[in-house]
């Protein structure tokens, strides 16, 4: 009609789900469950040069009760497995799990009496970041992939209590 609402271009129409997923993906609170050498690369990604806070995934909350993403960084042994499972169970939904590095994804080069061959034997995993250790760019790629997963599938990743989407994990392999 020729009349324009004030601030008309400042409104965005969308579904509530998409808004919530957008908010979730850009405010990931992480629990870095760091056990081994991959922790060095995790620290490198958190530091200023590669800077994961650009993606909203900055703050490590060192409590599973306060975090969304469980970063399993490094080798997990059979002795550590009950601890990992307990930490995972203490996290509130929605939660996602990133297997960081070769040892967390598949046991790595360890095939021995104690290394768990991949933490997906213990808890469900959403994103696998391969590498020994992965390049920080690969880690950032994993964060972006997780964000895409959150945007598309919503808060129910591999571990949702009300799964509405399919349950296939995304595999990100960089050799």
């Amino acid at each position, binding site marked *: 009609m020729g009349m324009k609402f004030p601030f008309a271009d400042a409104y965005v129409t969308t579904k509530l789900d998409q808004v919530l997923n957008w908010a979730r993906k850009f405010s990931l609170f992480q629990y870095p469950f760091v056990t081994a050498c991959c922790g060095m690369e995790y620290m490198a990604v958190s530091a200023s040069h590669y800077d994961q806070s650009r993606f909203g995934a900055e703050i490590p909350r060192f409590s599973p009760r306060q975090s969304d993403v469980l970063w399993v960084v490094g080798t997990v042994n*059979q*002795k550590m*497995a*009950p601890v990992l*499972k307990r930490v995972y169970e203490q996290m509130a939904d929605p939660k996602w799990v990133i297997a960081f590095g070769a040892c967390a994804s*598949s*046991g790595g080069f360890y*095939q*021995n*009496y*104690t290394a*768990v*061959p*991949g933490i*997906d*034997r*213990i*808890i*469900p995993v959403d994103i696998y970041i391969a590498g020994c250790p992965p390049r920080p760019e690969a880690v950032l790629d994993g964060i972006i992939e997780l964000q895409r997963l959150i945007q598309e599938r919503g808060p129910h990743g591999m571990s949702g209590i009300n799964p509405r989407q399919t349950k296939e994990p995304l595999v990100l392999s960089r050799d």
Partner: protein
Amino acid sequence: MSEDSAKPSAPETAPDAPAAPPAPEPPPLTRLLQEQFGERVLGHHAQHGDETVSIRREGMRDVFAFLKRDPRCAFDLMIDLTAVDYLPRTPRFEVVYHLKSLTVPHRLRVKVPVEAQAPEVDSIRELWIAADWYERECHEMYGISFKGHPNLKPLLLYDGFEGHPLRKDYPKGRQQPLVPMRPVKERYDYGERFQPVEHPHTPAVTLERQES
């Protein structure tokens, strides 16, 4: 040969055999131990100035006490204590000690062969307190007991772990999980490197693709 003609009076064991060269002088620490303990030193070798001696298991505590207290040796640090399993060979195990001196610039490796039937050596914990945890780890991984150690319980392995994992006859792929492992479709066939787990609640591993 030229040596035969230079020494015509030397007895020859075989025709055309050269005279044997003189045995090389053993390096200083080895010589010292041989003077002190004689036939308790079973063997030795040296490389780049670092020496290795093998000593008999009986009376090894005296040898180590000498190595620590004698001012020519003065080994005040025990750097490492571990064992090696040479399974088809007898004696089966060899406990290896690495010693270092801070005052005299030398290191020494001491090896003690141990049979499989009674895998037991003396503990050197009173000499070097650092041996405390090393002996606990060696015991849990190889099953070698250390006589005189007050607290030989496992250090790294968890309750309920059966067996001595670093022995050569421990199955390499055996997992002893504490939590039941989830069933996962593997894309890679690990073969004998990862055997199906023995936990009663864990279903078997299924392969997504049957071709390896």
